[in-house]
């Protein structure tokens, strides 16, 4: 049953990895230290500098990659035309500055608000669901290695799948609308929160947990009394961070058709109305910047 004090010593693993053990003789060179008569008085192991090899390897890979994607000429005039279109109303589909302004307020801003709403829902629901998940995976709470490993593997798979893939699959199920986007973001949030939180929980102070167990609590009670207060600030901080990430992800999701400002952006680009693109970028930029500022200052206050 619960054996906290024994568990501590049993978990100490050896530091050297599989790699180190097998490749040891390639990593170190033995050097004999001799005194003035040439007699060996000591032997030390000096790590061999493999750094140069890495540098060479990188350059080789770089050249290989260049073969796949060789450089091409840059068409600077195109660039110029795009930027001019952003500011010169003659080619605009919105006709003039008033039209642009109108578009900004009636179309772009509500779209951004939609996106924020989506992200809010996804982040909170996602965080809520992730809480039991990362608790289950923390080594110090859950003694059963099977459950832990299954959870870790499943979440690694979820984390590896790119968000837009999740969105596409969700869109097939729910149709191309915001719900699919929220769904995809909830899954994505699981992956992100899990990685950050379960490592943190493992490093938390187990003492109050042990105390609760010794007074007759079950593990759930012991967690909520002993560990929750410690984990709570980190949870909040990571939730804010996840919120930020989700906003950026939602732009991509929109491209795939899952709603929000990304969809509007992709429509505007496809119809090459760069004026609309500009109008959309303004609120987008503002929201992301403001969010970053707010989030980083709040997070500083929490830690």
């Amino acid at each position, binding site marked *: *049953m*619960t*054996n*906290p*004090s*024994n568990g501590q010593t049993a978990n100490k693993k050896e530091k050297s990895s599989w790699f180190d053990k097998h490749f040891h003789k390639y990593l170190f060179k033995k050097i004999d230290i001799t005194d003035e008569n040439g007699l060996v008085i000591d032997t030390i192991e000096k790590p061999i500098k493999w750094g140069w090899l890495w540098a060479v390897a990188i350059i080789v890979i770089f050249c290989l990659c260049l073969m796949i994607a060789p450089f091409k000429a840059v068409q600077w005039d195109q660039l110029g035309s795009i930027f001019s279109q952003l500011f010169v109303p003659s080619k605009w589909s919105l006709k003039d500055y008033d039209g642009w302004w109108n578009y900004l307020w009636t179309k772009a801003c509500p779209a951004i608000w939609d996106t924020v709403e989506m992200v809010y829902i996804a982040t909170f629901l996602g965080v809520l669901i992730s809480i039991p998940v990362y608790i289950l995976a923390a080594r110090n709470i859950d003694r059963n290695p099977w459950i832990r490993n299954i959870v870790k593997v499943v979440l690694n798979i979820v984390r590896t799948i790119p968000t837009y893939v999740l969105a596409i699959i969700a869109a097939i199920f729910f149709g191309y609308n915001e719900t699919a986007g929220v769904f995809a973001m909830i899954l994505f949030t699981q992956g992100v929160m899990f990685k950050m939180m379960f490592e943190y929980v493992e490093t938390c*102070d187990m*003492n*109050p947990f*042990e*105390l*609760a*167990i*010794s*007074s*007759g*609590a*079950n593990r*759930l*009670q*012991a967690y*909520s*009394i*002993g560990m929750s*207060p*410690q984990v*709570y600030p980190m949870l909040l901080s990571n939730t804010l961070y996840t919120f930020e990430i989700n906003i950026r992800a939602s732009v991509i999701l929109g491209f795939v058709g899952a709603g929000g400002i990304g969809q509007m952006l992709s429509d505007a680009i496809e119809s090459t109305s760069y004026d609309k693109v500009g109008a959309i970028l303004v609120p987008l930029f503002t929201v992301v910047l403001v969010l970053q500022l707010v989030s980083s200052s709040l997070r500083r206050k929490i830690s």
Partner: protein
Amino acid sequence: MIVFDHVDKVYPNGVKGLTDINVTINDGEFVCIIGLSGAGKSTFLRTINKMIDIQHGTLTVNNTDVSKAKGKELRELRKHIGMIFQSFNLVKRSTVYQNVLSGRVGYHSSWESMFGLYSKEEKMLALRSLKKLNILDKAYVRADQLSGGQQQRVALARALTQEPSIILADEPVASLDPITTLEVMDDFKRINKEEKITIVANMHHVDLAKKYGTRIIGIRAGRVVFDGKPEQIDDTTLMGIYGRTLTRNEKLGELDNDKSK
């Protein structure tokens, strides 16, 4: 009542933590356990509430066979045993009041304790425990803002709130300065006498054990080598427990002025 009957503790790698322990502790005693570090004092203590398993023999605590207790039965057993740790083990970010109240956790289901649904009697009980330890005025202060001695008192109040029949203390004063040590030990003594709670405590300092205990148990290499009254401790018995004369660390010193040897 705690009864050890031919109890062994063997670690998975074969090392014997405890060998053939036969000890009976009656209600109301104040037992102090002394011995070298690593001799098995902690192990002995932790087998009582099954924080550590035993391999042979029977250990009966309050008429429950400890090795057979699991799940609900184990929690029922532990609910009546309080434990005090050297590092206090309080929840640092919570207030003293919350820490003490959490002693009642064994009396509630998971949901109730997650939402903090304690009855008014329990809350009054918590406050009363704080008052008994003269620390009521700090009730709503965050636990990590207290000094070491105060934190240990809070831990003691928490144990009291469990309404235990036994309190186990693992080196409760090891992190405290000498004066605070005496204060906290006085609190232990008072609780032992007034609340009639059995106390089993490990300690480093022999003179402390002699001053406060009604019974001393000396453990060496996993075996009980001394079990008797404090008056019976002399240099020979100490030699048997420690295998050498005492170092300065093992004597608190401040107590030398009350006519020890």
